[in-house]
């Protein structure tokens, strides 16, 4: 029973990772790629770690997986924020389909 739940959670996680990586390859410019990939891959890996928690049960290994989840959330979001800000200052162009850019006046 536990094994079944763990397998299902891990499969859902890998499925989300696949969506994220398709986004990483398919979307047109750097900002959209970062957006799709960060969201999907972070939640996918959290789902995999939840599966690990279900597999090991409450105990030494389970708590390790549980501690890894908030660390993963905070580091992934902060790293994405730093990357997108750095890329804008570096001068990466946005896609042709972009409709609005309020940040340009603020940077000047």
């Amino acid at each position, binding site marked *: 029973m536990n*094994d079944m739940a*763990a*397998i299902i959670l*891990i*499969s859902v*996680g*890998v499925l989300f*990772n*696949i969506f*994220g*990586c398709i986004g*990483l*390859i398919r979307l047109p410019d*750097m900002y959209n*790629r*970062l957006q799709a*990939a*960060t969201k999907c*891959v*972070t939640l*996918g*890996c959290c789902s*995999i*770690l939840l*599966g*690990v928690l279900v*597999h*090991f049960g409450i105990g*030494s*290994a389970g708590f*390790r*997986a549980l*501690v*890894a989840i908030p*660390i*993963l959330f905070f*580091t*992934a979001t*902060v*790293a*994405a924020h*730093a*990357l997108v*800000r*750095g*890329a804008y*200052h*570096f001068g*990466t162009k946005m896609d042709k389909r972009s409709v609005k850019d309020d940040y340009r006046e603020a940077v000047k």
Partner: protein
Amino acid sequence: MTSFLNILLYLQIALCAACLFRIIRGPTIPDRMVGIDIFGILVVGICGIISVQTDKAFILDIGIAWVILSFIGTLTLAKYLSGKKLNE
């Protein structure tokens, strides 16, 4: 069950190959850095799957350390992009 976990593990490694495609191919430098960032998160998933497969818990420690190291690496790359000194 073990064979199904094997399939999931190979899928995850294939996703790492997709990140490598973005790192090699990426038209601009920030694209490559996005690939490196996502690669670092995917490895944590690989660590989780291997720890379930082999029933050993110490691999999760490697995962936690990998998260923090890849975070520091990405921050350094982002600082390089925005053209600042590292201690700012």
